[in-house]
């Protein structure tokens, strides 16, 4: 039986650095395995769309520019993503990966949450088409050919 059995911990802590992180002044170095922002590599993609079928959060869309020549653009919604990694598991061609470095995804605006991956000219083509009047849904519907 004792009183103040944790006094020792408190006294020791007086001479130690605080246990809390000093973020954002000191950036936390996460593990390399951290599931951060999703990255898509269109080079290897076959357009099977299994990742989209399995995504529990509806966070990825594949916009087909030219199916025969395998030109795809991926629209990724970082705000919807739950970072479960199922899409990476589902992809047989290793087109998808999650980066350990990019995890500071907070934003005050909505635009940064919509990320496009693909060849620059394909993304530009889709954005130009979306800018034209009367096309309705931006960048065309999912799976719609050019």
């Amino acid at each position, binding site marked *: 039986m004792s009183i103040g*059995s*944790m006094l020792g*911990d408190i006294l020791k802590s007086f001479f130690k650095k605080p246990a809390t992180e000093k973020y954002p002044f000191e950036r936390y170095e996460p593990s390399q395995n951290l599931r951060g922002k999703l990255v898509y590599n269109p080079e290897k993609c076959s357009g099977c769309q299994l990742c989209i079928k399995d995504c*529990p959060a509806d966070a990825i869309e594949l916009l087909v520019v030219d199916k025969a020549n395998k030109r795809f653009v991926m629209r990724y919604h970082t705000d919807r993503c*739950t970072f479960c990694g199922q899409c990476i598991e*589902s992809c047989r061609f290793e087109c998808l990966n999650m980066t350990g470095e990019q995890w500071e995804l907070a934003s005050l605006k909505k635009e940064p949450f919509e990320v496009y991956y693909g060849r620059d000219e394909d993304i530009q083509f889709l954005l130009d088409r979306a800018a034209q009047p009367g096309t309705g849904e931006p960048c065309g519907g999912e799976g719609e050919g050019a």
Partner: protein
Amino acid sequence: MDLEPNKKFVVPIGPQHPALKEPGHFEFAVDGEIVTGATVRLGFVHRGIEKSAESRTYVQNLYLMERVCGICSHVHGTAFTIGVEHLAGVTVPPRANAIRVLVAELERIHSHMLWLGVAAHEGGFDTLFMYSWRDREKVMDILEEISGNRVHYSANVIGGVKFDISEEQRGKILSSLDFLEERTRHYLKVVNEDETFLGRTVGVGIMTREQAESLGAVGPTARASGVERDIRVDAPYAGYEQFPVRMITDTRGDLHARFVVRIEELFEAYRVIREILDHMPEGELTARVPRRIPAGETISRVEAPRGELLYYIKSNGTDMPERVKVRTPSLCNWGSITSVAVGHKLADMPMLLVGIDPCFSCNDRTITIKSAGVDLGWTWEDLRQHGIEAYR
């Protein structure tokens, strides 16, 4: 104020109350300081998860089920995958089973340390709360290191696990475990020896073995009353057959016994994790599972940090389940509060409440009683209307 002598004085607590972190409504009838009766009303955080499971594929449901609970997300995923794998007739590779157990035990450590902090905080012992939560960061870091996420680790896929444990990660886990074990020994000493804390826990909320059995208590709450009930031992699942755990029980049944049982379980978790890391089976991480699951129904049970977690899955042969039923351990333990509360001081109620480690959001369900000939099946719109009317 009504001052009639024969009327009961009822103290309402919740659903919005600073002592409760989640919404639940309790009414304690008191005679002076002493509680003479208690009732509980739940259902403030019903989310319709079982219903939404019916319109998602099995793969998507795995992540929905993980989100039933933020603290024990891995066991929910495990219970669901074990059920689906059983329906599909798939055998999971031994290495995947070992990793499932490893993550489950790491999760148990983080859950019990979180509980230790919360329970100490409700007892007014905030020093223990802050230090135990500081040390809990170690196990959160391990989980981030191996899985990539701190909270919803998503370790499971249907048919196996997502990641392997590398040699470097093994070293990190072992060194963190040494630190945690030393700290846990210190906390056990504090819980057993601090006089003020013993005053709040010894002899408070005694639940006898008979009471625990008749109320259907599960998990550490039941084990602290001497009931030998642990799914990991009674019906080993995943890798628990290969890596058996020792059941921790106590006969006293009071709050102090629940502290001791949970802390002793931490030591058992450290031992099992070390054993898994030393004897990790070799082999594949996943087995192939078809997208369409054969028709049938199954029940899978796992031992969550709070007790037995039960999943019922009914498949109709498509890639979406027809029915998923989840029974979380907190639901079984509520009865112990209302019956044990009588005769204690009102000030003991918060500690008694957290003594079962309740998880309000996980256990809220809605049921309808079907009368003959009338179809009372609910649509989403019915559920929404019910929600609006129930909380008006």
